[in-house]
């Protein structure tokens, strides 16, 4: 029988929202306080949902230790207590939580093979959250 499993992780990071494709004025108008050149930080909550048949011999969709160790090495080690604007893999993309969601989804989609990836959800603060479940429409 198919079940969905969701695991929640925390990481803290700083970022500055700024696009080289816009003028100073446009950047200020678009990103407001988030355009502060010194950056600012968040405690992000990351929820990863995977799905699959429940293995009869283990009772599991996937072993949590596999998911935890993948997320720790491939995601948390990369972002926790970092400035997202300096994470090399992020390249020139503006480190909005939309882009972060899609970036983390791609890391999982490429490397995590123990269960089917359903979606990534990130809370940037208690008041706003972002979900990405794959598809090309994320980046215009």
């Amino acid at each position, binding site marked *: 029988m198919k079940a*969905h*499993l969701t695991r929640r992780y925390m990481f803290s990071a700083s970022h500055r929202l700024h696009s080289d494709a816009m003028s100073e004025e446009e950047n200020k108008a678009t990103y407001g306080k988030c355009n502060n050149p010194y950056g600012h930080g968040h405690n992000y909550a990351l929820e990863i949902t995977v799905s699959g048949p429940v293995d009869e011999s283990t009772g599991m969709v996937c072993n949590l230790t596999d998911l935890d160790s993948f997320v720790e090495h491939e995601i948390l080690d990369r972002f926790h207590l970092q400035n997202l604007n300096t994470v090399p893999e992020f390249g020139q993309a503006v480190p909005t939580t939309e882009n972060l969601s899609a970036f983390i989804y791609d890391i999982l989609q490429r490397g995590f093979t123990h269960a089917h990836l359903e979606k990534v959800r990130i809370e940037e603060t208690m008041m706003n959250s972002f979900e990405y479940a794959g598809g090309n429409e994320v980046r215009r």
Partner: protein
Amino acid sequence: MVYLTRKAEFAASHYYHNPEFTAEENRRIFGKCNNPNGHGHNYTLEVTVKGEVDTRSGFVVDLKQLKEVLNREVLDAMDHRFLNKEVPEFFTRIPTTENLAISIWQRLAPKLTTAHLHRVRVYETPDLFVDFYGEA
């Protein structure tokens, strides 16, 4: 169609062990959860039903009825129990959060007559939950 979610909490203990695995395999696959003396969690259960809103009552489902079924079929059986030793389906099935969600669905689905079960969500901790939608 309207979806209605009822929340409940129960506390129970469990451990993970498959008698077909060797002792070493059990330890490797289940880690600390393999301790035969068990360990416990405060589980949070969310049961979501769906249905049309009854024009006379304005309800999708009579919440009192839903609560009674939940109490009788799930909480009375599982709250303050050692799942492996006191809940019959877990004499043979490993009481993981996945299997707990499936078992709760199987206990509730036949008893809910006025609304359709949509989802059973079981939180083992605030950082880990399983959703079961009755999918084969």
